[in-house]
């Protein structure tokens, strides 16, 4: 039976190696869901049943969370079983998740946002100043691979451009949210 995706999709079918790698990844995912669901179930069962308050036993706080834990265990088990049947049990297959460069770029992006959120946001620095530092540094670091590929060094013009964008972003957001619409900023 044709599915809706078939109407327009031009994607090629995955190769056996890709399918096996995906199945192995899903198997790990299914097991992780089962562990997580077990944790939710265990914590729900340990929740206070408020017997001292003489509440109706059908209204204990852990009722729905426990059911959700069971659902996660069952669905995680189904996912793991399906992946197992699709060849996910074979270890050592090639992985197609991300290239080394993509991982480095992602680590850089996450590092920048965590550093900004934890170190600059709400630590006494005015919002516009923290925003300007974050945006300027982000632009300069995220464009570094492109400069390296083109064999260029960081120029004063590029620094000035990044700084101008950073200051403008910090000032405009502060003006629009805080001054124009009276919204508190972190």
């Amino acid at each position, binding site marked *: 039976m044709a599915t809706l995706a078939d109407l327009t999709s031009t994607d090629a079918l995955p190769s056996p190696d890709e399918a096996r790698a995906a199945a192995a990844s899903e198997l790990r995912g299914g097991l992780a869901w089962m562990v997580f669901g077990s944790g939710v179930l265990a914590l729900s069962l340990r929740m206070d049943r408020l017997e001292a308050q003489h509440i109706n036993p059908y209204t204990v706080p852990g009722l729905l969370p426990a059911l959700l834990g069971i659902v996660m265990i069952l669905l995680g088990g189904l996912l793991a079983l399906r992946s197992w049947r699709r060849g996910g049990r074979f270890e050592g297959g090639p992985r197609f998740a991300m290239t080394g460069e993509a991982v480095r770029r992602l680590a850089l992006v996450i590092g920048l946002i965590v550093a900004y959120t934890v170190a600059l946001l709400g630590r006494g620095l005015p919002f516009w100043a923290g925003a300007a530092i974050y945006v300027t540094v982000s632009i300069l670091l995220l464009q570094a691979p492109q400069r390296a590929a083109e064999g260029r060094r960081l120029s004063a013009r590029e620094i000035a451009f990044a700084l101008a964008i950073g200051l403008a972003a910090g000032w405009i957001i502060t003006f*629009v949210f805080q001054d124009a619409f009276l919204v508190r900023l972190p």
Partner: protein
Amino acid sequence: MFSGLADFANAWLGFMNPTSIALGLGGALLGIIVGILPGLSATLVIALLTTITIKLPANNAILVLICSYVGALYGGSRTAILLNIPGTAANAASCADGYALAQRGEAGRAIGIATSGAFVGTLFGVLCLAAFTPSLAEVALAFGAFEFFWLALFGVAMSGSIVGDDPIKGWLMGALGLFVAQIGQEGLYAYDRFTFGWDQLAGGISLIPALVGAFGLAEVLTSLADPVEKKLIQVKDSVLPRFREVAQYWRTVIRSGVIGVLTGLLPGVGEDSGAWMSYAAAKAVSKEKHLFGKGSIDGLMAAETGDMASIPGHIIPCLALGIPGSAPSAVLMAAMIIHGIQPGPMMMITHPHFVYEVVAMTSLASVTILIFGLFLVRPLLVILKIRRTVLMPIIFLLCTVGAFATASRLFDVYAMLVIGVGAFFLRRRGYQMAPFVLGLVLGPLLDKSLRRGLVLSDGDLSPFFTRPISMAFAVVTIFTLLLYVPAFKAAVRRATGGTGRVFRSALGRKRSEDTA
């Protein structure tokens, strides 16, 4: 009926002042800009605008949000046509034919068709919104705990089944959303669940920070981790809306409008389903099947009309039942609650005029996209030239402000960060965010309805299955879940034979597209 018309006229007149018009146009413009930028979704722009409009009067704030919602979905078709990348997930169905037309040098014509389809589709949906919301709310007044339990479960189950390409992953995300909604003080006894003694968690995970993380930060990470730049096709011909083609393809327009609204009514299904189902139906009955995917006007019209008609369709259950039809309408519902309007069956009693105000807002939004479609197509395309390395850090700044502003808590920013990074990795593994969002919204309702229902029946489960409306919801929910059991599915196929192939193919869609 005439009182409804009078309410609608009064609501329209209420918005005919310079402030409301400027706010509506501004909301639509921001929505279009976000829609044009690939990856940034309607959910994100509504969440961010919810925070910025928090001090505005309720009517003007909701007007801005609805205009941005309509604008984002409309703007997404630009990128679909010119870059072959859907600006929002809802525009994915427009890619094939829109991009093919653009490659033939007819980009302006494709944009004109998208504009007219979007305008007519939204208006059609608005008519349904006005006609059906009050009646549905009246029916919903008969709902009790048993019915709301099934309605919430039905929403999460449907969303998990239809969104994405793997129902197991969809249901898991729905269960995760329901679980996250249980964190914090529960509603009956103020008992702290899963807080581990941490006071900040007692307030629970707020919806806006969670949505900003799942749809904003996750997209920032996706965009920067995958720096593929595609060449933009130049617009050389006229971009004027093509109402002649609307008249020519009137059957497609009406059919897609009906499908869009009906898919909109299904909880958590997303606007992309409206577009894909309309596209499939148009292809099934079209005389020019061979042109589909190669620049079919019929196909583009169907996709654009279907996704835009689903917007008012999503707002109908949101207003009448308090069950959002999609992720953007979930934020819209949260914004209504922030502004003191509780959507749901009681709304027709507590705020009887509000439904007609929403109808007026949505029709106003459709007019704004027509205006921008006429005058601002080419200038707005300039924003596609901004490099991601410049744009995405600024989007992240907006995410932090959006997460912080509703409650002025830094904890919400940290929650946004954790949910965003988690959503990024889950999305890369094929997990969709729409069921998670619906679970997060419906979690408290499911919890209270289950426990209240059990108290009312003194632990007896039979009322969950024997009350007429409960029984109907239970049958549909269980049937939907069982359809994914191969033996049951084969039995259903044998029983139904070859009929309804188009509808089944639409429901069995295997495509991994995120919601708006």
